[in-house]
């Protein structure tokens, strides 16, 4: 079966995100003063084959842990969809 894994990687809570702060300040300059916080991160779409959905989730989890995120500073979340 073909799957698409949709992965979001964000800096962990408590890890300073200078891009997020800069973007928040820029939004304030655009008069979106209601914005209290911006978190930046990365988004990946990974197309791959697996025998089942649970197998696909296991594979994607390994990809996140071994390469797509750095566990020292980042956290990840994902969803798996069939193509």
């Amino acid at each position, binding site marked *: 079966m073909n799957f698409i894994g949709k992965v979001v990687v964000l800096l962990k809570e408590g890890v300073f995100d200078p891009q997020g702060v800069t973007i928040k300040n820029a939004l304030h300059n655009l008069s979106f003063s209601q914005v209290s916080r911006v978190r930046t991160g990365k988004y990946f779409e990974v197309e791959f084959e697996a025998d089942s959905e649970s197998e696909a989730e296991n594979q994607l989890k390994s990809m996140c842990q071994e390469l797509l995120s750095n566990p*020292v500073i980042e956290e990840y979340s994902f969803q798996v969809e069939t193509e």
Partner: protein
Amino acid sequence: MKFGVVVFPGSNCDHDCYYALSQVVGVETTLLWHQERDLKNCDAVVLPGGFSYGDYLRTGAIARFSPIMDSIRQFAQAGGLVLGICNGFQILLESGLLPGALLPNRSGHFICRFVYLRVENNRTPFTSLFQLGEVLKIPIAHNQGNFFASSTDIRSFLDNRQVVFRYCDSRGEVTEVSNPNGSLESIAGLTNCEGNVMGMMPHPERSAEEILGSTDGKKVFQSIVKWWEEKEIARK
């Protein structure tokens, strides 16, 4: 003694390191292409600065998969001397050869200027020619040099004396202002537990001659040579 300087696609301090080692320090040095697995009998390996693989994904994240990194991992595990400078430090962290991570600078800016470092441990192969507490002037040039690790890990680095250099002012005081990038505990250079692998954000190869404004960086390389030669004499 023989040094190897690894060349990744996107390394841009490789030839500076090669020049500083071979011409300024005067030690045999060879370039090692990242696709090779042979370390050519080098006694110490330098991972130079630059932007390996265009900093794709995370700094150093892709370079760790280069074939030569398998050999460097084995070399390091056997006690071989490995020095990572700037992007080389980032690669060592991503490879798991050193603990922690480097975040974007607190200011959000790329910073390229001289900084002062205080020698926190002179009983390492990389600092054997320095006095404890000596203040060095060596430049930084990076966007992601903000050292981060969990508070438990930071504690253990300090307890194990793995912190080799901290950012300080010209008098050797470690202050909030003297910390250019937001690094926890002002960490600028760190070794592994065993002490044979060191990563540092400042560029010793850019401060190896008077004409560059400082020769303190030269002593980092000379320390490695002295340490290695003394070990060889003891071995014989």
